[in-house]
């Protein structure tokens, strides 16, 4: 039996509304998206950890009132550097390939930069070509390869973006 061909949603990029995490009412939307798309189970506390402590780093993408994508991040001190971390990034299948993920991530990274982060990091499966291309375009390098990082035996790359040193204000 052949798989159903993926149905792509029809929309203009301008129709996508990007919203910063606004409160408890956004939480079930994020949870549903992530639970649906990613294989790792997260308890509700994991979501709360991120969106409560760093609400300004999480964004949602809406199309005509429907939540179609989200990014969840954190930042903090890590071995003497102030570092941002991208924990979850999801765009539902019919809406992929149109730059929504890039826009979500870009907003979050910009916020991290403005908050004083020196670098941003995340892990991605070595086979996830889409993610690697996306982050590569934004300036991330593959800093390390992590052998058999995922339980299915797949390796991961640790991706890192180093911000340029802030310009001196004269």
């Amino acid at each position: 039996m052949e798989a159903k061909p993926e149905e792509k949603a029809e929309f203009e990029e301008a129709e996508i509304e990007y919203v910063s995490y606004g409160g408890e009412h956004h939480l079930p939307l994020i949870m549903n998206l992530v639970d649906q798309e990613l294989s790792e189970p997260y308890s509700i506390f994991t979501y709360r950890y991120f969106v409560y402590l760093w609400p300004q780093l999480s964004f949602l993408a809406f199309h005509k009132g429907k939540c179609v994508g989200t990014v969840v991040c954190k930042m903090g001190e890590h071995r003497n550097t102030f570092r941002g971390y991208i924990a979850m990034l999801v765009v539902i299948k019919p809406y992929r390939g149109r730059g929504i993920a890039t826009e979500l991530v870009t907003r979050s990274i910009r916020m991290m930069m403005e908050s004083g982060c020196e670098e941003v990091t995340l892990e991605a499966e070595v086979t996830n070509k889409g993610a690697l291309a996306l982050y590569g375009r934004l300036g991330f390098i593959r800093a390390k390869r992590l052998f058999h990082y995922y339980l299915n035996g797949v390796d991961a790359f640790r991706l890192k973006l180093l911000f340029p040193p802030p310009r001196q204000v004269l």
Partner: protein
Amino acid sequence: MADKPVYEEASIDGQPPKLASIPASDTTVWADASPLLQAACAGLRDGELIHGDNFNLFAAMSALEIMDPKMDSGIVCTYYSIDEAIENGAAPIPISLDSTIDVRCTIDIMDHLLACEAAWHKGHSLAQTVFSCIYLLRLDRTAPHALLHSYCRIIRATCKAVVSVVSDARTHEEEDLFTMTYGLPLNGDGDDKCLSILNAVEETISRQLRACKATSSKRRLPEDLEPLQSNSNLEEGFCKALLCRLRFRKHFFHVLSCMKRPQGRGLESARKHIASCLTELESILESADFLRSCFDESCEGDIDDKTTASGFEPIGFDAMLNSRLSAPTPPRAIKILSWKKAVEYFVKLLHDLDVICSYSLDPHLESLLRFVVQFQKSQPDLVARSHLQLLLVQDGKLYGRDPFFAVINKAAALPEATKNHDIQKNESFLQLGMLVMNLLKILCTNAAWQRRKLGKFLQDWRVIYVQLELAFRNEYGEVSSSSNDENTCMKIFQHILLWVEEQTYWIAFRFLILGFELELYSTGEYCMVYWYLYAVLIKLTEKTHLMMAVSHDTAKRKGKKKKDSSKDLARESRIPPAVLFLQCYICLAEGLTMMLAALRNEIPVFHSPSPFNTEHEKFVQHFELLQRACIPDHVSYPSYKESTTHARFSTLAMYNYFKDAQRIAKEVKSSFSNDPERLAELRKLEQVAEHNSVAQNVICRLGALDPSLKVSFEFSHHPFFATVVVKRS
């Protein structure tokens, strides 16, 4: 948790709820907590969290949702315990009252165990693989079943031996899962006799095989020998199928024992057992046809996915019984390798072990390093790599035999006599010995971990150089004395300092090229990587050449005396082949750097700036560890920019480095006629050079004019020098 119970009554009818598995005792009683939980649910609104002093949101992330099968490892799936599983007939002994079925099922168990063992070696936990076998978890109860019992014993003893080897090799991080054996019954009384138990069973089956063959040739059979099973048509097939499986286990156990013997004394014997293992594996594969056809019922599903030769599901396995032993969160379901893939794994493992056993234990460090690098090219798995590590470094000596100072002494082309010099007790020299030991261990690990460690290691090598240099200057700052011993010490320092530099650049070189193997560089970064590689290769070649000159001097002094014939003089002025080899590398690195620089300077699509940072940040990140160790000196982003900013197609056309590489590769081939590996690599380098030379010509002629020209980079010929491919899109 409250100290005092808020609700004291139990359930509604005052009776504690009945639980089959966990009874109340003298000091405990069951109480119904439902009302308490009910009240607690209503106590918080959505989004509220109780904040304790030691309980914050970060801690809350470790919360498990009880009864969520992905999070709750205590959840009962099939059976609550191993005993319950056995009580319910999950692992019957005998497996079947029909002896034919019993034998077939036993073979299925053996095959599935092989598949589990391969899955374990490949990176899954022992608990979920080999020890998902209920027979193995309660080995003593298999005693009435000689075949199963002997097989389980040797499996257990083999697993224990392999865990021991891998633990001793101290591999790290991502591979630590392998050695986790908490709560698993790996230690059995009498397992040291597992071979003799196995031999007894093998002997019986051999006699049964002889007996059934004798029957077919109508000779009289011994009356006290019972056949293996009741179907005489199948007796020969089953006997053979069992014998090769038992013999494989026997020989494999011998391989492990022989390789464990110190100083490589058992390597030759190990090779014999490896050859026997491979023969038995052949027979095991051949037995599949018989096993599949001996019963009328055929099995469902794709035979290639099955974990047994017969295709039937094995009896007596349950991976969930151990879930509480594995980790706080339940292990993800894993896929056991198919039986065919398991056999393939063991064939590869045996070949890798054979390569190790064939090694000549060359006391020359340089040859050893080349051997290890070559060995790693076949991507050996953890078990093979651990064996190599243990062969190389034992009791703080190389091969358990050569003290590291002596090894360094030889590598640094010092006269044999100096290897016993007292200077080796000097702190810096002791540390240097440790560094060499650690280098060998690191080179035996998986590429990803290896590269990270090599990067950090550079600093240690830089520091030891500085320390040695300081010590040297302190001792011999004023060059005056002519005492013999002082001259010797000076010579030791000089040689070793040079050798340390060479080694350091070699490590830097390896660090950079592993990045290609691990796919750490994106195409846009190749230019800076090849440029840095070029800089490192220049220094490496310089030090290697110096080292060879110095070693030639030592040899001259030692051997040839006054026979300076013209041939010797000519040989002296020629560049040594090893150096020419490196020069070939240099030409390719330079050629690629310049081509990539020209492409990026001339064609817009090759230069795509990112919104958040520039090439400078990427340079800093990729080469941070090298820069920190000043390897090489005077290399920086500005110098990289300076070297590449003026590259254009017109400048590219002026010099073809690839042609130089081609020429050198051709010339130097004859010097390596006895070295098949280097010869093979030279051919690859020639191919890269040739392809890239042509590509460069095309690009120079058409590049700026033809927008449909597409340039890409593939590692089709050589693992770290890219072949440039030019196409019309």
